[in-house]
């Protein structure tokens, strides 16, 4: 997936306040956003994540590492 497309989908999927994000953006995830992120990962990358897998994700960069850098172009 193109990074720009990923950023747009992430903003929409998590309903983020900040509409323009990039790899350096921080992510402050509430418990509801954790659930949205689980759906987002399943829908867009086929990743079946659990909340515990996502507990340390506090930035877009960490999320992209979790997904796998090779998934982005």
């Amino acid at each position: 997936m193109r990074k720009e497309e990923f950023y747009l989908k992430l903003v929409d999927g998590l309903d983020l306040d900040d509409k323009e994000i990039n790899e350096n953006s921080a992510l402050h995830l509430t418990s509801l956003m954790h659930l949205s992120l689980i759906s987002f990962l399943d829908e867009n990358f086929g990743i079946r994540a659990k909340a515990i897998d996502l507990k340390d994700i506090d930035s877009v960069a960490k999320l992209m590492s979790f997904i796998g850098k090779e998934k982005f172009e």
Partner: protein
Amino acid sequence: MKTFSLENKNVLITGASSGIGAACSILCSVSGANVILIGRNQERLDQTLKNLKPGNHTKLPVDLLNVEGIEKTLEETLKKYGKIHGFIHSAGLDISRPLNSLRHIDYQTIFDTNVICGFEIARILSKRQFSPIDGASYIFIASVMGLAGVPAKIAYSASKGALLAGCRSMALELAAKKIRVNCISPAIVRTELVNKLFNDLPEEAVEKIKSMHPLGFGTPDDIANGCVYLLSDEAKWITGSNLVIDGGYSCQ
């Protein structure tokens, strides 16, 4: 200890392969019923079947998402049993997603399993050929989430609320056939489904849910006991009701 008797009763139970449905199946057999087990997973149905007190039991592997196919599959088996005195619709799906992550297919899937197939089975069982002259008892396993809101449970709580509402109308309609229709609304019962859901939640969210149950989480047997009572003749004047079994969850 004297328990409510289900001797000479045939009881059909959906979701019988695990959790509340499996516990209901076992307790119904202990109370003397012949049980027809419905579930998707053949191996797990076999496991439930093994745990039943001996009787004229059978299993029926049915995918309840195939609502259209239920009637044909069911009727063949029901003809062998004749009349059906009890029905417990325990099959259920849960999806924990906030509104912005829910899609049409999520609502459709959850309503098909939790509500529509249960009502379809009730329609089939209430036909004259399967309905005993002295009446029957149908139970839909709803949830306290059909009464109170919980974030990220929109589809699930809507489906359980639909069961509660539909049950009241069905009770009125089927009273003439002496068929009683009731719901049981549990709060959190520790089943495999719930354990799986808890794995998707942050730890603090699980702790918060736990603290909302003054008597702690329930067990499948807590719900099965209520079902056996509602199926028994001792509950012959109860219809259109909702038995809340929730460890005090809804007191608050």
